[in-house]
């Protein structure tokens, strides 16, 4: 593909509309949440400065909120607030709260007691003391808190794209999934610049003397409000249905790009993470999503796959890919890994995924039960041989496969096993393999072709729909380019698919992607 040779600058110019839009969204998200954080944090800080008995528990609570991992926090928000701007703003607000409360408290408590006493002794009321003495004197400290909160928010706001709230995270996470460095940088560099510029501006304000501070202090809330407004810029809402696509899907020829060019599908689209997409569809936040055909949640949330009648989604047959050097080092490895070849069909994989995702069985148990049912399970020999390192991407199916391989290796050979599961995305997993951090991981033929090798578009289109041609091509190319061997496919095809709620699909009479396009065209 020509994108290979594209410079970052070209990419940014080409995507300037999107980039500008994401940057504005990012600023908007940052400042809306900051605005509400100040609205809540400032009075709370004042309150605990007044009633110091409360300060310990309030600060501890805000501190605990701060320690919740951002992804988890975004996850918690979905059942409460759905997806999109609302939960993202609330999550960001929660992160911004602690520095603002703490600095307001510290600032007010730190006011020289003799100044406070003088104010009181001259006959100022409590309100006058607060507004004319305590807050102005605490202002540099409070501004420092707002500054910290702003920088935190610019960073955390990149995660907002996970729950369809937009921002520069769309490029960053899209780029990671697509192995597209330009795309990652096009999101990461503006985000970093935003953080640095905002930090610098607020530092300037913070270090002004009292005289200038007084004048400029009016500017700060106004600026926060105006910047908040950026998020509310009207978006082009096309029609009645809403689609939620992963960042990876958005940027792929066999994803959103293909839907547009081959089907001419025009649908109001938001970008969302795979982790929350299915649930959002189930809860009617979304109508169409880009899922994986073997995903267990398909079954759990009663979703149905729209038929890809123009065949834009190439097959994704899974097979372990192994470093050739590792095969030399562990001569028994190949035959053991091939024990699983052809054993798992689409339906079996969906069922296995359903057991982990929805019945919450551990991948270990699911893997063991399956191997036992196939008479492949052998008790671990607990040997002390060389260590085989298994990698996996960060989703359920890969965990299950990794467990199965682990048990097979331990039961059939004298090697030990180390698992490095949960490697972020295709790029991270593949880089780990190329750099000899892992020995093998399960990869998909389509991904190998379109994400990792990226041959020119025409050639890719020609072979992508043929299972055998694709497999042969990636096998040859990986051997040549990376000295990595594709073993025999496991059997199932985990391809992209568009999905809808079964009931809605029936109600609207939409069963194929072409149906969907027609429905959308008729219901503008």
């Amino acid at each position, binding site marked *: 593909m020509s994108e290979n040779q594209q410079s970052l600058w070209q990419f940014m110019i080409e995507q300037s509309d999107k980039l500008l839009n994401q940057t504005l969204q990012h600023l908007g998200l940052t400042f809306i949440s900051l605005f509400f954080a100040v609205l809540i944090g400032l009075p709370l800080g004042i309150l605990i400065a007044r009633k110091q008995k409360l300060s310990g528990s309030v600060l501890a609570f805000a501190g605990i909120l701060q320690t919740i991992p951002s992804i988890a926090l975004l996850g918690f928000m979905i059942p409460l607030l759905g997806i999109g701007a609302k939960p993202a703003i609330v999550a960001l607000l929660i992160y911004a709260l602690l520095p603002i409360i703490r600095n307001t408290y510290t600032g007010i408590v730190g006011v020289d007691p*003799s*100044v406070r006493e*003088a104010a009181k*002794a001259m*006959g100022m009321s409590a309100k006058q003391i607060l507004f004319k003495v305590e807050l102005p*004197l605490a202002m540099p400290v409070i501004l420092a808190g707002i500054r910290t909160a702003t920088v935190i928010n610019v960073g955390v706001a990149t995660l907002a794209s996970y729950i369809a709230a937009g921002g520069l995270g769309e490029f960053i996470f899209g780029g990671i999934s697509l192995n597209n460095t330009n795309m990652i940088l096009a999101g990461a560099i503006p985000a970093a610049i935003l953080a640095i510029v905002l930090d610098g501006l607020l530092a300037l304000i913070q270090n002004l003397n009292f005289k200038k501070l007084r004048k400029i202090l009016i500017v700060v809330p106004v600026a926060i409000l105006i910047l908040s407004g950026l998020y509310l810029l009207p978006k082009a809402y096309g029609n009645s249905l809403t689609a939620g696509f992963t960042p990876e899907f958005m940027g792929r020829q066999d994803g959103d790009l293909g839907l547009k060019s081959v089907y001419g599908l025009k649908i109001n689209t938001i970008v969302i993470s795979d982790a929350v997409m299915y649930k959002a569809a189930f809860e009617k936040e979304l109508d169409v999503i880009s899922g994986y055909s073997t995903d267990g949640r398909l079954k759990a949330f009663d979703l149905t796959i729209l038929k890809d009648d123009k065949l834009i989604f190439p097959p994704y047959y899974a097979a372990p890919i192994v470093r050739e050097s590792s095969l030399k080092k562990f001569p028994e490895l190949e035959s053991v890994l091939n024990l699983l070849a052809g054993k798992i069909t689409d339906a079996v994989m969906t069922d296995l995924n359903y057991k982990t995702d929805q019945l919450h069985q551990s991948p270990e148990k699911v893997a063991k039960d399956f191997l036992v049912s196939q008479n492949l399970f052998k008790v671990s020999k607990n040997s002390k041989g060389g260590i085989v390192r298994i990698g996996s991407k960060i989703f359920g199916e890969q965990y299950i496969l990794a467990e199965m391989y682990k048990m097979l290796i331990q039961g059939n050979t004298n090697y030990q096993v180390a698992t490095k599961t949960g490697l972020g995305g295709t790029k991270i997993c593949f880089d780990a393999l190329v750099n000899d951090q892992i020995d093998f991981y399960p990869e998909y033929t389509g991904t190998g072709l379109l994400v990792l090798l990226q041959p020119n578009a025409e050639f890719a289109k020609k072979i992508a729909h043929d299972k055998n041609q694709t497999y042969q091509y990636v096998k040859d190319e990986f051997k040549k380019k990376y000295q990595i061997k594709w073993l025999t496919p496991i059997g199932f095809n985990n391809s992209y698919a568009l999905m809808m709620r079964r009931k809605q699909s029936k109600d609207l009479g939409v069963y194929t992607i072409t149906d969907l396009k027609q429905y959308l065209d008729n219901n503008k």
Partner: protein
Amino acid sequence: MISVKQISKSFGSTFAVNQVSFEVLEGESLILLGTSGCGKTTTLKMINRLIVPDSGEITIHGKKIYEEKPEILRRNIGYVLQNNGLFPHYTVAENIAIVPKLLNWDNKKITSRINEIIEKLHLPESYLAMFPSELSGGQQQRVGLARALVTDPSILLMDEPFGALDNVTRSSIRKEFKALEELKRKTMVMVTHDIHEAFELADRICLMDKGEIIQIGTPKELLYQPVNKFSEDFLASEKLSLAFKVASLNDIWDFLPASDHETPNIISSTENVWDAMEKLQTQSRLGIKNESGDQKNIDFDQLTAAFSQYQKNPVS
């Protein structure tokens, strides 16, 4: 007039102030003297309700202070703090204008009154636009005083007003303070631990210890008629220099020799012996004029001789 009746205040189980009563007459200056922790500051702060007494009653001009809103009460009482308590984010002019603004004075009146008060306190006009941090400690304290005096309150409370200053600045500012016309008719309560300061500025001194009043009286009474050993010991180390300070030239007038050597340096007989001695360090003779216009011209030896005559039987 301030009347304090049997006020007590305890923090935890210890009495900070125990059954304290005194009166301050119109135009009088009463100084609360004692070591730190004796309850003098607590007593002072109860007068403008910065601290609420557990029991007892305080009236100002015959009116109980708890019948008024504390803000209103405080706006009519000048207050000077040890660490000046100037607002660091206000200019000097804005600092001085705080109480007038609380009292809703119009801007014209505020400006003219500020100009008047800074002139009296020898503060240059160029200071008005400056921030407190740009001034020296002594100047800051002057601004603090200007702030307390700007509305010409009839009552002034001062908590160690010169406590944070170095010795040199302190004695010069104290002298200025004493000569200040604005203060002459004020009813004043001031807290200090500095015996000399108390003796120089007080009409009456209220000596306190462990939250109780040991003795109230004029400086002379404290010096020559101590009520108990504590009172006596408290002043013992400074007794001689205090004696020079409490004795006015009027007190020793009769012991001074009449002489005709005219001198251009003339002081009033209401000045104390200490000040006269200081002046005679730099000049050989000093003329002293009493209320009836008589003048005596003396040198240092004559002054000290007259003082020792007086000391044999000091008038109290």
